[in-house]
């Protein structure tokens, strides 16, 4: 990071801390208008440093090797596709996947925050799915928290020398699940239950999201594994350039 980039990062972090921490003193996509104003601003502010870090991270990757843009575009498109597919689940309701695991594994978690927010804006503006007021909260759960877990698990599996594809599968699956855990927690923070407070409320929201999301998370895991396998075959030079694949063919 250059000096200029660093100072912008510092400013953004300070901004997030000021706005992000104050409201928390009281204390999937969340639908438009369903979060109180304070929470909307707080979650939005928390996202800002991640988004800026993501912007720099993408800039750096592309400056280093221009060709990686194809794989980056594909990871973005993957988020587009997966988050548009509503899939029936065992609980009798539908939900959709996040698709952010792939980008997180290939480019690192902060880069995905940019890809994710593009999709979220598209859905919020055109589809009334999610929303502009809840954009911050949704970006945090889908484009920041989920990818960070994916990335962490992928790295952990790599360190433990787990089979690479198994690692990719686990990373994408758990990242997807974690997104919905964060969503539940965000809703619970805004709507604590009268008896039991935030904890009890979080359990209730998890009860709605988790069983529905579990099979979908598995699907996301499988699809991510398939696309990584395919990319390894056809886009080996790019994957090597971004440091994903090291071994010789």
């Amino acid at each position, binding site marked *: 990071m250059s000096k200029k980039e660093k100072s912008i990062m510092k400013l953004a972090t300070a901004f997030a801390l000021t706005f992000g921490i104050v409201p928390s003193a009281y204390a999937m996509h969340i639908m438009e208008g369903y979060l109180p104003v304070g929470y909307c601003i707080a979650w939005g502010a928390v996202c800002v440093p991640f988004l800026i870090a993501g912007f720099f991270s993408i800039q750096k990757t592309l400056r280093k090797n221009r060709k990686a843009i194809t794989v980056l*575009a594909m990871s973005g498109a993957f988020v587009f596709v997966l988050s548009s597919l509503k899939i029936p689940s065992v609980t009798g309701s539908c939900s959709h996947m996040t698709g952010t695991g792939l980008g997180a594994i290939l480019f690192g978690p902060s880069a995905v925050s940019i890809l994710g927010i593009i999709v979220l804006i598209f859905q919020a503006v055109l589809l*009334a799915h999610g929303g502009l007021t809840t954009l911050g909260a949704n970006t945090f759960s889908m484009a920041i928290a989920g990818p960070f877990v994916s990335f962490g698990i992928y790295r952990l599996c790599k360190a433990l020398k787990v089979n690479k594809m198994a690692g990719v599968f686990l990373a994408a699956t758990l990242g997807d699940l974690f997104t919905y855990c964060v969503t539940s927690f965000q809703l619970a923070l805004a709507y604590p239950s009268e008896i039991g407070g935030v904890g009890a409320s979080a359990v209730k929201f998890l009860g709605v999201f988790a069983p529905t999301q579990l099979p979908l998370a598995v699907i996301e895991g499988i699809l991510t594994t398939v696309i990584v396998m395919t990319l390894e075959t056809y886009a080996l030079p790019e994957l090597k350039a971004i440091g994903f694949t090291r071994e010789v063919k």
Partner: protein
Amino acid sequence: MSRKRKQTIAVLLVLVCLIAIIPLFALKGAEFGGSDDAGSQMITEIRGAEYEPWFTPVMEAAIGGELPGEIESLLFCLQTGIGVGVIAFFMGRLVERKKWQDKQL
């Protein structure tokens, strides 16, 4: 791509289809509403009162009502289409490039 890897991918894709489709047959008569709606019902339950969203989606405000179901599916398809288009375009290029490179060797 090795034969074994091709087979793995085929098996995995079949598995994906099964996971996605089985609930539809297993749970006959289920509504398959969005889990987002289930979430808003839960908010009502916890608060003990209907929650009035304080902001209407931009699109709904612009057309003065809820987005018609058919149009919504159109826009969702558009989203899928853009995504698939980009993936397919680059994948096509990559596959051809590999063919060409393999010939060079």
